[in-house]
Every structure is written in C-alpha cells, then in structure tokens.
C-alpha cells in the first residue's frame, strides 16, 4: 500500500543515472549539473527514509554549497564549452579499472558488514536527537570541527591573496 518502494526505486535510479552522467558526459558543465541531479536524488532517498534533517542537510550542503561552488568555478574558467581533451581519454581505462575496484571493494564490505534488511520504523523525526547529540554529547568534537573549518577558510583566503601591493 505504501508508495515508498516505488519512490525509492525512482530516486535511486535518478541517483545512478545522474552519477553515470556526471562521469560520462564530455562537457564539464553537464557533468556538474548531472552531479546536482544525483545529489538531489540522494536527498530524496533520505527524505523517503524519514531522515528529514539529513535530506535537508544534503540539499543545503551539497546542492547549496558544493554544486554552486563547482558551477561558479566552472563559469569563471574559460574551458566550459570544450570537451575533454585526448589526454583524459587516454586515462579512461585506468579510471574505469579504479572505479570497478572501488565498487567491488565497497560491495564486498557491505555484504560482509551484515546490514539488517527489513522494515524499519521511520516515523520518528531525527532532528531533535541529532541536535541533542551534536550540541550535547559531542559538543567538543563539533566545536573542534568548526574551528578546524574556520582555520581552513582563513588559510585558504590567506593563500589565495598572494600579493597585495
């Protein structure tokens, strides 16, 4: 009766197709926007699974941050319209091999990991518990992570600003 299996398969295929397109499309801008599609699919899968905080965080961070920065960077560089050159094509077999190895490794890890397959209770909203964990038990780690990010940010700004006369 529940439409969740259908929705899962739809969004999962969106993810897979988006991911494949991101890898295979020759134009780099198309690849970025395929990645956007893939991320949206992942967010939708989270939403279907009832992890609404994760879904929205996925949207905020990956769509609102990563993809926008990617596209901004690509818009600023000149090679938007060009296809990948011959050098990249020569490297393709290595990439395929690497990807296949990674895929196999992950699959074996997952199958050996003993994940339980079954229907979980997804009615419980996760936001509150995540908030309590982040700002309660793991507050030190959380703050360290944010300070680290701040340092990285300042460092990046410092490094980029090479000469100022």
């Amino acid at each position: 009766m529940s439409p969740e299996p259908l929705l899962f398969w739809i969004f999962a295929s969106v993810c897979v197709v988006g991911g494949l397109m991101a890898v295979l499309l020759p134009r780099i801008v198309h690849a970025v926007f395929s990645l956007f599609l893939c991320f949206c699919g992942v967010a939708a899968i989270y939403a279907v699974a009832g992890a609404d905080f994760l879904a929205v965080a996925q949207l905020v961070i990956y769509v609102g941050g990563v993809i926008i920065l990617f596209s901004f960077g690509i818009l600023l560089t000149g090679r938007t319209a060009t296809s990948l050159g011959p050098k990249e094509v020569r490297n393709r077999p290595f990439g395929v091999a690497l990807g296949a190895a990674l895929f196999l490794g992950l699959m074996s890890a997952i199958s050996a990991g003993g994940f339980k397959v079954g229907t979980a209770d997804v009615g419980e909203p996760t936001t509150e518990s995540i908030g309590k964990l982040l700002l309660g038990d793991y507050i030190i780690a959380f703050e360290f992570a944010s300070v680290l990010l701040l340092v990285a940010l300042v460092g990046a700004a410092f490094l980029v600003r090479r000469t100022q006369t």
Partner: protein
Amino acid sequence: MIAAAQPVSTAIADFLAELVGMPPNWFFSAIAMLLVATGVLMLVVTPVGLGGVYIERKFAGRMQNRRGPNRVGPYGLLQTLADGVKLLAKEDIIAPSTDAPLFRLAPYVVFIGAFTGFVVLPYAPGIVAGPLDVGVLLFLALIAFETIGIVMAGWSSNNKWSLLGGMREVAQVVSYELPLGIAAMCPVIAAGTMSLNGITDYQGGGGIFGWLILRNGYWAVVMVPAFLIFYVSGLAAAKRAPFDLPEAESELVAGFHTEYSGMRFGMFFLPEYALMLSISGVTSVLFLGGYHDPFGLSGPGGTFHDVWWWGLLWFFLKTTFLFLSQICLRWTLPRMRIDQVMYLCYKVLLPASLACLVGTAALRLL
C-alpha cells in the same frame, strides 16, 4: 492541508484501483498522490501567478501615477491571464548556440525551487502540507536550489549578459544566505525548534507581545534588527529591487533570462512571485507570530484558539503586508551595484546578524 489531502488521495487510489480492477496497492496510491500534488500545485500557482503579477503591476501603476492594467476584464483583473495566453502562444525560441538541454531544464529547476517553499509554511492551525522539523533549513536549501536553475539558465544561454547575470546571482544569493540563515537562527534559538509549526506555536498567546519581534517587550532589542536583516536578505535572495542585479534591465538587458521567450520566460516570471510570497510567509512565521492575531484571541484559551479561518486570515494579512511592502520598495529604490551589495552583506548584515544571534542566545539564557 495534509490532513485533508490524505483521504482525497486514498479515495482517488481506491477509485483508480477499481477502475483497473486490481486490489489497491502502493502503485495506485503513488499515482493518486501525484494527482493530488498536481492539483494542490495548480491551486497555489494560479493565485500566485495571476494575483502576484496583477498586484505588482497595479501597484507599480498607481505608485507611478498611472493606472496599471485596466483593459482586460474588470479592473484589468484578467490581464495576467491574457499575458499568460500570449506567452503560451508565442514562439519558443531556442537559439542554435545555446546548450539546449540545460536551457530547457533551467526554468523547471527554478520553478521547483520556488514553489516547494509553500510546503513547509503553516497557514493556519492544522493547515500545513509538510510539517517538517527542519522547515527553516529546507527553506534555505530551496533558495540555493533555485540559484542552480538560474546559473543553468545564465550559462546555457551562451550570452555574455546572461552569464554575468548568472554569476551575479550566485555571488549574491550565496552571500545573502549567510545573514538570512543567521537571522533565521534567532527565532530558532528563541523558540528552541527549527520547525515552522513549533515556532508559530511558541508565539501563540499574549497577542502582539507573544510575537517574537516584540516578545515581552524586551525581545525587540534583538528581534527588530533580526527581522530587518531577514527582510533585507530575503529581498536579496528573491532578487527583488534594490537587489535585482541578476536581471538588471538597464545594465544586463535582462540578465539570465535575456535569451528566454514565450512560456519559458513565464516559467522564470512566476517563481519570482512565488519566492516573494514564500519569503514573506516565512518572515511572518519567524517574527510576526505566523497565524496568531495581535489580540491574543488565537492563543491557548483564546476565543479563536485553533480556529482555522481566523488563523488563515491573520497569516494572509501579514504575508500580504510583507509582499506589498516588497513591491513598494521595488518601485521606490534605485538598484545597487554588485560590490555595494556585497559590502552590505558582509560588512553590515553579517556582523549585525551575528550580534543579533549572540544577543538572542543571551536573552534566551536569562
């Protein structure tokens, strides 16, 4: 609304299953949900599209000592409809040098991003499509989502003006999401929840002094600046004047939608009003008490406690007021320059919003 939609979609699913002669299963219920969603979307898009555009044009006209639309229908009410028909009938021009797939896709991305915002808004007691725990965050995510569509449009048009428009959009929206988000965190901290329903409930009772902007009087010290910051950042996120740089008509011709024509242009036009409305709605929920009236009648124990039409009326009034104020501002102010927009964001709004955040946290601890 979800409460009302559930039986409808179940009924449609049963009906469909009977029609095909199969036992009702998830497939039919999915189709029924899609149908209901489409119906709700039409219910939202039509008034937003027709009403928003009409009001904007009428206001612009009257503020400029003109009449505004007055030919089609009584008081020109059908003008927008006529324009929509015209847009539909126009040739859909896709220049050969555009990147056609992205060019076609972009308006839909913008459309989705702008209209999904209505899902999380609590319109009245018990009327909310998706009572998400992370409503505020989703709203921020959707603004970013819309930006992607605009970047797509700007890039795929293969027009330098469009590209500049797209870049301005990215720079502007990404920057303004910071003060927008931080200012939104002030009510979140005060209410202790990110759910728009929760924030509304928190403001119930006590009338106008229950609203966060004036809560108990002294909350105004941080909440009035936070409200202004949120309002200004919201204008920038919705690309409204004086922040309409991505489409600045006197500089970039029409910015990111220079190359669009016909209904594809319309698909950029409607989301602008949708985003204006949903930002106004979120602002009224976060700071102005959502569907609570200023007299305390809708709070716990009040005369109109949990009466849906009373709440809807007040939500509508507040949202419309904010919407109209955005229109008035647009027809009053000149446009800013991109570096001044950035200055305003990083050197004025961001520090101010951080100060508001700290102030809210301090008040919360008191």
